[in-house]
């Protein structure tokens, strides 16, 4: 009998010790000490039911960390939609190329400063960890549209040792109203897509950059305006990366000099 009581007590101990009451389920964590800007590449698709959940996490991060988090929505992959005669599609061949290059397997999935695929529920932690790291360079971007072209200037200044890698410049568009499959399986035809990658400005994988400590280099480039883009909603993202990931990133809204 005593053995039976011991056995029952042991079983109860196992089942009791893990229950977490409703008021005890959240643990407060101090926000990250921001030392740099972080690039979050969101591999998404208009036919991807869970992708709006990833977007919701991006919005939380932007609210907490503001400009320090640079999100880019890369539409493509198996759940991307390239559009038809009736509906706008945001997926591009370049989006597919990036998706395949990084050997991604599902959507939504993110690259946080290009340190490997991260499931969307882990983005907050990965961004937080990355924000605390010190970047070896600073980047500034200026961009304005006049005529049929966007004029872009990227200035990079080394701050900590030599940096060798690639400078990548992308053009993004906000406020695109287009269909999106929602987590409940329904289709929202007027879903507002932000920070959508429209095109790379300086090639799929950017251009070489080598910069020493306290050295400053300036890069100028142009991008022709596509008739489908709303020039009031465009942004430029520039970042430097190599095999160790993204070193630093910057984002600026394109100044629209076109008379409306």
């Amino acid at each position, binding site marked *: 009998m005593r053995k039976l009581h011991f056995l029952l007590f042991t*079983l109860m101990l*196992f*089942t009791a*010790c*893990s*229950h*977490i009451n*409703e008021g*005890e*389920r*959240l*643990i*407060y*964590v*101090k*926000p990250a000490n921001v030392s740099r800007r972080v690039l979050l590449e969101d591999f998404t698709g208009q*036919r*991807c*039911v*869970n992708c709006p959940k990833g977007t919701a996490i991006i919005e*939380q*991060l932007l*609210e*907490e*960390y503001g400009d320090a988090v640079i999100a880019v929505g890369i539409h493509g992959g198996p*759940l991307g939609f390239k559009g038809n005669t009736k509906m706008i599609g945001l997926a591009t061949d370049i989006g597919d190329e990036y998706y395949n290059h990084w*050997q991604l*397997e*599902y959507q939504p999935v993110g690259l946080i400063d290009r340190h490997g695929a991260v*499931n969307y*529920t*882990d983005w*907050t*932690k990965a961004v*937080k960890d990355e924000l605390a790291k010190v970047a070896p360079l600073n980047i500034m971007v200026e961009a304005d549209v006049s005529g049929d072209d966007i004029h872009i200037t990227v200035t990079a200044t080394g701050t900590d040792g030599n940096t060798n890698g690639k400078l990548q410049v992308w053009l993004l568009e906000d406020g695109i109203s287009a269909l999106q*499959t929602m987590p409940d*399986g329904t289709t929202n035809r007027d879903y507002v897509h932000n920070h959508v990658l429209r095109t790379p400005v300086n090639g799929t994988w950017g251009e070489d950059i080598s910069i020493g400590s306290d050295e400053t280099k300036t890069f100028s480039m142009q991008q022709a305006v596509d008739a489908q883009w709303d020039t009031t909603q465009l942004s430029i993202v520039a970042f430097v990366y190599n095999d160790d990931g993204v070193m630093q990133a910057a984002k600026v809204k394109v100044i629209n000099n076109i008379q409306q």
Partner: protein
Amino acid sequence: MLLAVFLLNANAQDQTTGNKQPVSLHGTVQSDVLIPQNDHDIGAEKTDDVLTNTYVDLQLQSQYVDVGVRMEYLEHPLPGFERDFEGWGVPHFWVKGRLGCAELTAGTFYEQFGSGLILRTYEERSLGIDNSLLGGRLVLKPTKGVTIKALSGRQRRYWSWNKGLVSGADAEVALNEWIPSLGNSGTELMLGVSWVNKYEKQEDIFVDATHKLNLPEFVNAWDVRATLNKGPWSLLAEYAQKTQDPSFDNQYSYERGTTALFSGSYSKKGLSLLLQAKRSENMSFRSRRSMIGTSSFINHLPPFTQSHTYALAVLYPYATQLASGEWAWQAEAGYNFKRKTALGGKYGMNVKVNFSHVRWEGTTFYQDLDVVLTRKLTQDFKLLLMYMNQRYNKTVVEGEGGMVCSNIFIADGKYQFSPKVILRTELQYLATSDDQGDWAYGLVELSLAPHWMLSASDTYNVGETHLHYYQGGVTFSTGAHRLQVGYGRTRAGYNCSGGVCRYVPANKGFTMSYNYNF
């Protein structure tokens, strides 16, 4: 090398001790090879020169001790497996000792408690699933009709073992061994109870930028069940419950998980009936809470939907929805009309009707009504006709696509030219206005016993793409060897087994499959 040592030791022991049961070596070899080709029409890409999934199992058995290893070469696997699946090595190694009523296993092992509602570790190579445990297991049979199991281990995930610890115990009692009146009346009554515990340390899962979840480190699950067999009747009732287990699958919900199932069958010569129902909610149970994909599952729920084999009947296969929940019902009846009766005709006729329905919270996940007639028309010709009406919620199973409603018609004829020559043909048609529209399928298969089989088939999309997915193959079998070579296209789609599915991208090329058992 390891095997050679085992062999030498075992042989030495056998010769010196003169055991009654000689030491024996058994094994299997399975190698599936694809030499892929590009095919832009179907979206097939040549990713490598040669792709192969190759397994070699070896077991050394003796009276008291068994030893086993499995080598796997998956460095360049067939299309559609998760990236972490790639690798090669010896992920299985075990030693099993038996003494009296006890059996102790150390190393890797598979186990199932009851129907698997809280524990089922198994291997399904076609899906890339191998969730074995690395640890120890003790099985005791202390008295007649009683089996007790206890185990603990870490679960395999491709080429590593998850850090979480899975432990559990199971007891089954066959009451008919203890109660003479039950045994004398031919009644078999078995009661079982199981418990599984998963330990996994805290991790940082944020709900917003400044709050993370306080996660339970221990998750407990338990299961009770009873099976009753008497004459043609067989009944199973089982209930399982799981404590708080926030995971990616359940969107980090703190709700408990439950499953209840009932299955009853009647089987007598010429007549069979099956009726079963299952309700499950929040029963995804993995050894890694943040895992996605098909790996790291500790449990498995039986699908309660008909398992089909015909190509178009499995075009839209259902995958059990562990994470959300489902109500599943299945009813099946089979009847043999005797020969030389009005309906049975000269040679008799078999009719089977199956109905499966799966839903949750007002949404139909899957429904399947199928009728199969099998009839021998002449001494040499046997015909199977099947009609199937299917509703497949593509959004639930695949993430998008809406409800696909289809009617499927199948004719399978087998003509025996001689005792050694059999020709089998299949004609199938799937009619639907959803997804990619109608499909047609044809197969010709010639068996030349005892060694050869030749086959050719084509799956054709009538409704949208108008693409042909042709396949041709030759199989040669002799003794324990079986070699199959083929060439053709495979469409993109889901490959399912037991309600678990894997997406396979389109591919094309030469295939080879070799199996050997000894």
